[in-house]
């Protein structure tokens, strides 16, 4: 009898434990690798789990280049995470295809949806607003300015205070002075572009010259041939078959910059780069031998434009149970309540009105430069087809820089492909 009672008690305990485990909500959070952010977010997760014992958060990181692919394949199999963040160019398709849940403003800590729009800078929530509903909140809004290594400038006999390039034409002359070559091989580059990111860093160059990627009515691709051809001519002259100042096949300039190995003078990057320099090379960070200046402009520009800004938005999977969605928005609201720490420790701008007016933002080195350029720029082109359009621009730029294609021919091919992609939508 005693033995029977013992087994009965064990079975009861097992059932209770199983029920308790079932009542726990597990939230899966997929994001890209960023060591500085991991440190603070792991702390937020612990704090949130302590305050909400019925919730466990599983944070999974992937390399940023792999994120879009991993999230896509998971969603294709209807196995997406509860929440994730991607660049808006990749994320927008999830919104238009009904894969994301509109914001639960109460769970997110706001009295109304209007209060959310009021809390953020104007227009920054436009990319995640679709058919009158809000689908995401920004983890970061990033624009790129020009980072300069003063030591490289001085080594090339330049004065970084006054010789830094203000125009793309000056960028060529300064880079020629900095470049060290061994025959055709460039041992030290003055500057090089961030080649995979044509929409963010190169389309604004075309816009400065009066061109447009897509017409205002969204129906025609590639506007103003003259501007595009001027841009292609500039890129051809930049590449190995022209003045040989850089190429997509050299190591990424932004990665080399932090090392301060006298092999790159300038690169384009966001405010987050400051945190990465501090983490990778504290000596260089503390030396004060680097600076950030505005995105250059063509001397013959007809319009002012800085690098486009792009956003990583936190979004929630609509296929998860309502209970998970609510808890996920609550967690997002909790994390985004630490925007000053995100800025100070990771260098990410969460563009709330309060943050932009805060002392923390003003105290960040060169934050005024980034703010000024953000006012000059606009959000990156985002649509269901933006990744494909970017690939077409990439092929056109590569063809003039590397394959010897004429700018006119490259433009013709780009127009054909971009228009076809636009018409597919």
């Amino acid at each position, binding site marked *: 009898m005693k033995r029977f009672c013992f087994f009965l008690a064990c079975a009861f305990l097992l059932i209770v434990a199983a029920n308790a485990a079932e009542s726990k909500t597990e939230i899966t959070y997929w994001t890209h690798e960023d060591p500085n952010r991991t440190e603070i977010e792991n702390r937020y997760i612990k704090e949130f789990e302590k305050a909400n014992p019925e919730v466990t958060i599983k944070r999974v990181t992937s390399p940023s280049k792999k994120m879009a692919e991993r999230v896509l394949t998971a969603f294709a199999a209807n196995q997406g995470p509860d929440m994730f963040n991607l660049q808006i160019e990749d994320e927008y398709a*999830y919104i238009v295809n009904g894969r994301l849940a509109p914001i639960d403003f109460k769970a997110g800590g706001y009295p109304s949806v209007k209060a959310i729009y009021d809390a953020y800078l104007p227009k920054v929530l436009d990319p995640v607003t679709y058919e009158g509903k809000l689908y995401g909140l920004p983890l970061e809004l990033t624009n790129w300015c020009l980072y300069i290594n003063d030591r490289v400038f001085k080594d090339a006999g330049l004065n970084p205070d006054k010789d830094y390039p203000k125009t793309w034409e000056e960028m060529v002359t300064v880079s020629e002075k900095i470049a060290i070559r061994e025959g055709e091989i460039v041992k030290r580059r003055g500057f090089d572009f961030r080649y995979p990111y044509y929409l963010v860093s190169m389309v604004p160059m075309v816009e400065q010259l009066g061109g447009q990627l897509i017409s205002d009515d969204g129906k025609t691709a590639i506007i103003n041939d003259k501007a595009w051809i001027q841009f292609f001519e500039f890129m051809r002259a930049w590449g190995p078959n022209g003045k040989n100042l850089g190429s997509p096949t*050299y190591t990424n300039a932004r990665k080399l910059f932090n090392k301060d190995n006298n092999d790159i003078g300038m690169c384009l990057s966001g405010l987050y780069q400051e945190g990465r320099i501090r983490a990778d090379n504290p000596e260089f960070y503390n030396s004060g031998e680097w600076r950030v200046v505005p995105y250059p402009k063509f001397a013959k520009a007809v319009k002012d434009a800085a690098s486009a800004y792009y956003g990583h938005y936190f979004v929630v999977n609509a296929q998860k149970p309502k209970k998970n969605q609510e808890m996920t928005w609550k967690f997002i609201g909790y994390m985004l309540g630490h925007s000053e720490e995100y800025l100070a420790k990771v260098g990410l701008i969460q563009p709330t009105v309060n943050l932009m007016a805060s002392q923390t933002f003003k105290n960040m080195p060169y934050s005024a430069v980034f703010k000024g350029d953000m006012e000059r720029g606009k959000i990156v082109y985002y649509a269901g087809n933006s990744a494909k359009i970017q690939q077409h621009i990439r092929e056109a730029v590569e063809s003039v820089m590397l394959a010897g294609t004429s700018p006119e021919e490259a433009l013709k091919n780009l127009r054909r492909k971009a228009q076809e992609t636009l018409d597919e939508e």
Partner: protein
Amino acid sequence: MTGRIFSPGIEHKKARWGWVFIFPSLTFFALFNFYPIFNALYTSLFRKKLLSLKPPKFIGFDNYIYLVNSPDFWNSIRATVVFTIGTFIPMVIFSLILANFIISRKRFQKFFQMAYYSPAVLSSVVVAAIWLLIFDPRGLSNQLVNFILNTPGIDHKWLANSIMVQISTMLVYFWKYVGYFTIIFLVGLASIPQSIHEAAEIDGVNAWTGFWYITFPLLKPTTILVSIMSMLQCLKTFSTQYLFTQGGAPTEPINVITLNLYHTAIRDHRIGLASAMSIILFCIMLFFTWLQFKASRSDEVSY
């Protein structure tokens, strides 16, 4: 009326047990090979977006018609054919030469086998990452070639030039897999009875004649196997081209069918179109395999 009593023979019983034993693997094979093929064939007849929750629209052969008229797809066919011919023919020839070299060694046979085989066990991602560093304009490849040719400062544009980037992908693939096929040839060579070589030697046959008239014909099944395997492997190539384009190499010259397929599915979300590409690739592979079997008129070799 007398009924016939069927009494299965021992061979029949064996065959029945054979079916029982292969049933699990057959099920596994059908599930993970046949099902995806038929599913891809079915999907290729629809306009289907990867993220869309709407039911896909049946469009018949429109995806195939689109591909036939697409210059990008024809460029992918060109890139795949160039890569396959440029890689699998040298791979078969050199793996046969290397296998003969290794088997003729009296010492260090194991060492050579391991040395040639080791790249095959590396992941393709690691291989491409290593070669990206080597092909960097300031990397080893330029230094080595310039040292050998005494041409200091020349950038051979391993990844930048449209011809060179195709050669670079072939080089990487060749380096990675030549050891693997060498080992298969070694097994084939080892299975030829030594007595045949000894008899030939007694008859005064020299090394070259012996290889050409005795070893090579006896190696025919292995040669066919290696040529089919290597050709299929080359037609399916993906990771080298993918990682090279991620590393800044121009896409167009090395936009092989698998890379185009990947971009169509993952970047453009057009899974119906990507499925049509995969079916075309499947048919190409099937055709060339059949052609090779037909051309070689593969008879069994007995020693």
